[in-house]
């Protein structure tokens, strides 16, 4: 019974396995196939069934923030492989491959940006860099994002996409959970809001650290957000899993997230939240769209935020 693994359950370092032999542009739900430019134009959401494909960090930032507003920070941090770790392949080789494949230095981009004219500090993960796993560099970068939020007095926004902690850094990776939670605590101490957006998947050590601590928890439709992966739960306990086990919709029902927001509406939802949280005397910057006054009626903002239901 001691033989359990409670972290990364998917094969994040195996580029082929997340797609299980499928072409990455073939929808795993309805098998519709897309050219890459079609998918990018559709925000990587299946036009047929609404399945949300995984999104590279740079595409996410391009979709989410005001054009040209992202200023990257801590871009030159790189992993150092302190354990000189070798499994079937040296960790350094996996890092180089991931960097060449994604053009990223590690699985997270951080910096400052604005959304709907509202400034924020931003941390965005990339699943395509070693399964979005969190090691020393991801942990440090998240702390840099929190530092930026505190220094500028702006909200912190994180977009998670991760199989969990990075095994190749073992305890150092585990410690990033404590480190990032403490960074959230710093943001809390500065009385600034933290908005956590979980995309598929946000599991293991990432959902059990900073990603779970959003003052507002947003999930993309269908995003897996469990601590242990479904396969581990199944194998360890022999329990039958509900079909939506750990998925965003069930997490909403169970009270673990505030909103499930389709990708096409995410920018608007985030902009509204940042606007709602903004200090009352603070006007948005000049070139940004003016905030829309709340619709009439006691549920005006809520109705707007939740897409006009209950009018």
């Amino acid at each position, binding site marked *: *019974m*001691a*033989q*359990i*693994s*409670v*972290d*990364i*359950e998917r094969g994040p*370092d195996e580029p082929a396995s997340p797609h299980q032999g499928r072409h990455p542009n073939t929808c795993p739900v309805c098998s519709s196939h897309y050219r890459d430019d079609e998918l990018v134009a559709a925000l990587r959401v299946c036009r047929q069934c609404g399945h949300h494909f995984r999104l590279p960090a740079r595409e996410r930032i391009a979709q989410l923030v005001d054009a040209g507003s992202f200023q990257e920070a801590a*871009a*030159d*941090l*790189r992993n*150092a492989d*302190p*354990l*000189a770790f*070798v*499994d*079937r392949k040296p960790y350094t080789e996996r890092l180089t491959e991931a*960097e060449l494949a994604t*053009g*990223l*230095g590690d699985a997270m981009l951080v910096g400052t940006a604005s959304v709907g004219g509202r400034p924020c500090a931003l941390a965005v993960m990339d699943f395509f860099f070693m399964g979005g796993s969190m090691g*020393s*560099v991801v*942990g*440090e970068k998240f*702390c840099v994002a929190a530092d930026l939020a505190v220094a500028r007095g702006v909200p912190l926004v994180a977009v998670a996409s991760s199989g969990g902690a990075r*095994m*190749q850094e*073992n*305890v*150092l*990776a585990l*410690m990033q*959970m*404590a480190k990032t*939670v*403490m960074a959230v*605590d710093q943001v809390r101490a500065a009385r600034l809001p933290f908005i956590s957006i979980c995309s598929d998947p946000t599991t*293991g050590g990432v*959902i*059990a*650290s900073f990603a*779970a*601590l959003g003052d507002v928890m947003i999930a993309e439709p269908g995003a897996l*957000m*469990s*601590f*242990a992966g479904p396969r581990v*739960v199944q194998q*360890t*306990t022999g*329990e039958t*899993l*509900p079909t939506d086990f*750990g998925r965003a919709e*069930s997490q909403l029902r169970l009270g673990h997230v505030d909103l499930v927001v389709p990708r096409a509406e995410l920018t608007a939802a985030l902009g509204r939240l940042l606007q709602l949280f903004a200090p009352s005397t603070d006007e948005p910057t000049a070139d940004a769209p003016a905030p829309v006054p709340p619709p009439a009626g006691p549920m005006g903002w809520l109705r707007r935020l939740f897409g006009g239901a209950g009018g």
Partner: protein
Amino acid sequence: MVRLTEEVHRLRRRFQERGEESDVWEVVQNARHRDRPYTLDYAERLFTDYVELHGDRVGGDDPALVAGIATYHRRCVVFLGHQKGRDLTERTHRNFGMARPEGYRKAIRAIELADRLGLPILTFIDTPGAYPGVGAEQGGQAGVIARSILALARADVPVVCAVIGEGGSGGALAIAVGDRVLMQENAIYSVISPEGCAAILWKDAGQAKKAAFAFRPIARACLDLGVIDAIVPEPPAGAHRDHDRAARLLDDAIRGALAEVEAEPAASRRSRRRAKFRAMGVWGMAEPDAAPAIT
């Protein structure tokens, strides 16, 4: 190219001297030994008196994570720890030391109690990991682990943690964030079990020995990486051979660590603890001219 400091180069060289696979595996087996002292075995020996607290005040009590109030060297402390069982009935009752959300909620309650009353917190870490069950997941396992870490991070009182067996993943870290983190000679601390690591990276859980050897869950490695503050010696051949002596050695280490932390200014304790964990991690810098083109 990645530029590394001389310190990182030294660390890498040390880890390249790989030693013996069997030595690492022996530690893994000792850490899991069924005669190894558990949290309540140490509570019996370390504390003059103690009362165990039960329940999360929400809807359950988790026997896999115990908490209580104790007298430790003439002062009142709050303790918490994972608890395994020795015989089959007890092991099942304690769920093999794998806590559920109600366990971590009990831990948070105990931490907040200690903070409110100004009592030091002692934690004992010994779990294969948080319980990966459907109910535990639906009850918010991930969130309670994060909030337990947060509760320890926010405490103004001294926190001394001791890894006394298996320090398995987030379920262990949830109660292992302290001003001093101690680790027994035959304890292990890792982000995933050796079996889990082997199943993912070697595609074969049977390669656990190889995985343990590669990712080094042992105390010496944790000390080298700056993750723990001290290694606590055990009786010859391991703590399971002599519980009383193991307890005396652990007592010496905890008592010393607690005295050190108590002597530090209380007002800056939280920021020192945060700085200690912020420093954990090893990285290099991309050489500016060789950085990949990023648009």
